C-alpha cells in the first residue's frame, strides 16, 4: 500500500460508559478485544464527551468545539433549522472533510446522515438491512392483518430478521463493510464506525436467562414511580418485562458490549491479516455514557453525572506499541480532532477549541485543567469537571423525558473522595462552589464569544465576496 500517512479506524460505540469495560476496571468480562487494543495503545482514564446525546456529541468530536459553540445543541427531531444554519454559517473545519482534503479515502459507516455525512466519500445509510426491511414491509402493507402473523412466522424461521427489525443492529453489517474496505482500499483510509448495539433497547441477540433480583427490581420501580411522563414509564415498563427485570436490563447492556467487542476484534484482526495494524491509528470511544439507575435515571443518558459523560478513550497510534500506558490527566472529545490531525502529520485545525493530546501521549503531560459539559436536549444544564471536583448547574425545572427534576439547581461533588457523585457538598463548600460557578460561567462566555466571532467573520467574508 503506497502511502506515508497512517490509516485511521475510528470506532464509536454509542452509549458505552467507560466503567463497563474491562480495561476501565469492570469486574465482569465484557471487552477482551478492546482491552487488547488498549494494551497496544494509550488509555485515557478521565476522558469526557462534550455533552450527553448523539447529534451534538459527534458534531463536537468532528469539530473540536462544544455544542453551544458549533450550534447543534439538540438531538434527532429536536435539531432546529436555526441550529443547522448556525452550524453551517461558521464554516467550521470538520474531521472527515479535513482528512479527505489531505488525501484520505473517507468511509462513514453510520445512518445519522444530514450534516454527519459531510466529508465522507462513502456513506453507509442507504445500504443497511434495516432499510431493506422497511422497504419490504411497506410493499407488503396490502396484506393488512395477515402481515403480523406472517412476520412472526418469518422471525421463527429467520431469527436474524427479528433483531434487524429493531432498527439499529447494523453492527455486523458495518463490521463486514469495514473489513471489505480494509482488504481492498489503496489510499490511506479513514473509517468511521458507529455501533448502535449498546444503545437502548440493548438488543444484543441471544442472552442467557438470568434470575430476577428483587432488590434491583424494587430500585428500578421506585425510580420509575417518580417519573411524571406516561409515555416514558410505559416504554420502560415494557423493556423491564421483556428483559427480565432490572437485572436482565443490566445484563443486556453488558451483553451488547460483548457483542460489539467481538466485532471490534474482527476489525483489528483484518488489519493484522493485511499487515497494516502497525500503520493504522485505532481510536475507540463512545458519544456519551449511560445511567444504569444511578442518580434516579433509569437506563438512559441524561444528566451531566460522570456515568453519562465519562467516556472510554483509547488511542492506538501507528508505529511501535505503547505498552498499554494509562493517562490520568483530563481529556475531552474536543481534543480528538487536533490529536488525530497531529498523529496524521497534518496541521492543527484552526477552528477547533480542543488541544492535541500528544503531550499526554508522549510525555504524560497534562493538556487541560477543566472540561465544560453541556446539556440542552432534555434539560438545560452545564457542568464543569476538574481533576478533583464536579460542579453542575441545572437551569431547567424539569427533564423533558421524565417530566421531573433531576438533582438540585446547583450541585458540587468532590470526585477524589466521592467518584460516584453521591454526596452533594454545595451547601458545605461555599468557597469552592463560587470558584467553580465562576469558572463554568467564564468557559461558557468564552465559547459564545468565539462562536459570535466566527459568525461575524463569516458574514464579513460574504460581504467581501
Amino acid at each position, binding site marked *: 500500500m503506497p502511502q506515508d500517512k497512517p490509516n485511521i479506524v475510528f470506532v464509536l460505540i454509542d452509549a458505552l460508559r467507560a466503567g463497563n469495560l474491562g480495561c476501565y476496571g469492570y469486574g465482569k468480562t465484557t471487552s477482551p478485544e478492546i482491552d487488547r487494543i488498549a494494551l497496544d495503545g494509550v488509555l485515557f482514564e478521565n476522558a469526557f464527551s462534550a455533552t450527553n446525546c448523539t447529534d451534538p456529541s459527534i458534531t463536537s468530536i468532528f469539530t473540536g468545539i462544544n455544542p453551544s459553540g458549533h450550534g447543534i445543541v439538540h438531538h*434527532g427531531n429536536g435539531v432546529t*433549522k436555526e441550529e443547522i444554519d448556525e452550524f453551517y454559517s461558521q464554516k467550521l473545519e470538520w474531521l472527515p472533510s479535513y482528512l479527505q482534503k489531505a488525501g484520505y479515502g473517507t468511509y462513514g459507516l453510520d445512518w445519522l*446522515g444530514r450534516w454527519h455525512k459531510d466529508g465522507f466519500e462513502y456513506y453507509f*445509510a442507504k445500504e443497511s438491512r434495516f*432499510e431493506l426491511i422497511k422497504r419490504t414491509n411497506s410493499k407488503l402493507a396490502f396484506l393488512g392483518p395477515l402481515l403480523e402473523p406472517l412476520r412472526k412466522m418469518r422471525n421463527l424461521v429467520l431469527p436474524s430478521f427479528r433483531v434487524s427489525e429493531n432498527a439499529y443492529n447494523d453492527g455486523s453489517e458495518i463490521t463486514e463493510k469495514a473489513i471489505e474496505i480494509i482488504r481492498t482500499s489503496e489510499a490511506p483510509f479513514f473509517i468511521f464506525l458507529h455501533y448502535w448495539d449498546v444503545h437502548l433497547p440493548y438488543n444484543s441477540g441471544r442472552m442467557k436467562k438470568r434470575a430476577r433480583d428483587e432488590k434491583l427490581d424494587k430500585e428500578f420501580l421506585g425510580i420509575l414511580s417518580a417519573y411524571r411522563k406516561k409515555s416514558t414509564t410505559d416504554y420502560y415498563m415494557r423493556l423491564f418485562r421483556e428483559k427480565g427485570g432490572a437485572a436482565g436490563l443490566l445484563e443486556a447492556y453488558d451483553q451488547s458490549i460483548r457483542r460489539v467487542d467481538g466485532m471490534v476484534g474482527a476489525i483489528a484482526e483484518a488489519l493484522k491479516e493485511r499487515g497494516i495494524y502497525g500503520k493504522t491509528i485505532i481510536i475507540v470511544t463512545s458519544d456519551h455514557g449511560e445511567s444504569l439507575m444511578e442518580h434516579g435515571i433509569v437506563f438512559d443518558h441524561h444528566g451531566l453525572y460522570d456515568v453519562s459523560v465519562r467516556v472510554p478513550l483509547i488511542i492506538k497510534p501507528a508505529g511501535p506499541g505503547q505498552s498499554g500506558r494509562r493517562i490520568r490527566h483530563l481529556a475531552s472529545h474536543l481534543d480528538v480532532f487536533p490529536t488525530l490531525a497531529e498523529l496524521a502529520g497534518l496541521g492543527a485545525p484552526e477552528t477547533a477549541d480542543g488541544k492535541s493530546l500528544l503531550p499526554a501521549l508522549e510525555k504524560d503531560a497534562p493538556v487541560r485543567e477543566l472540561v465544560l459539559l453541556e446539556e440542552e436536549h432534555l434539560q438545560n444544564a452545564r457542568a464543569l469537571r476538574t481533576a478533583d471536583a464536579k460542579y453542575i448547574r441545572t437551569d431547567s425545572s424539569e427533564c423533558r423525558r421524565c417530566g421531573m427534576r433531576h438533582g438540585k439547581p446547583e450541585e458540587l461533588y468532590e470526585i477524589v473522595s466521592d467518584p460516584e457523585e453521591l454526596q452533594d457538598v454545595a451547601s458545605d463548600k461555599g468557597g469552592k462552589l463560587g470558584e467553580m460557578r465562576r469558572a463554568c460561567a467564564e468557559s461558557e462566555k468564552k465559547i459564545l464569544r468565539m462562536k459570535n466571532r466566527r459568525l461575524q467573520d463569516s458574514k464579513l467574508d460574504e460581504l467581501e465576496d
Partner: protein
Amino acid sequence: MVTVSEDLKKKLEEKGKESGFDDVREYVHHILNRFMKKLESGRGTGKQFSEEEEGRVKERLEALGYLDD
C-alpha cells in the same frame, strides 16, 4: 472618535471619492453602516435536508426508544 493611520486615511479618501463621497467621514459611516447591517442580518445558509432523509433518521430514532422528546 476613531483614530486611523495616515495610510488608511489616504485609502479611504481615494475610495470614497471613487464612490462619490466627498467627505471621508460620510464614506466611513456608509461602510460601517453596511457592515453592521450585514452582521445583524438573520439570513442563514438556508441549508436543508430532504424529508426522506429526515424521515429515515426519525424512524431509526423511534426504534431506539426516542419517544416524543
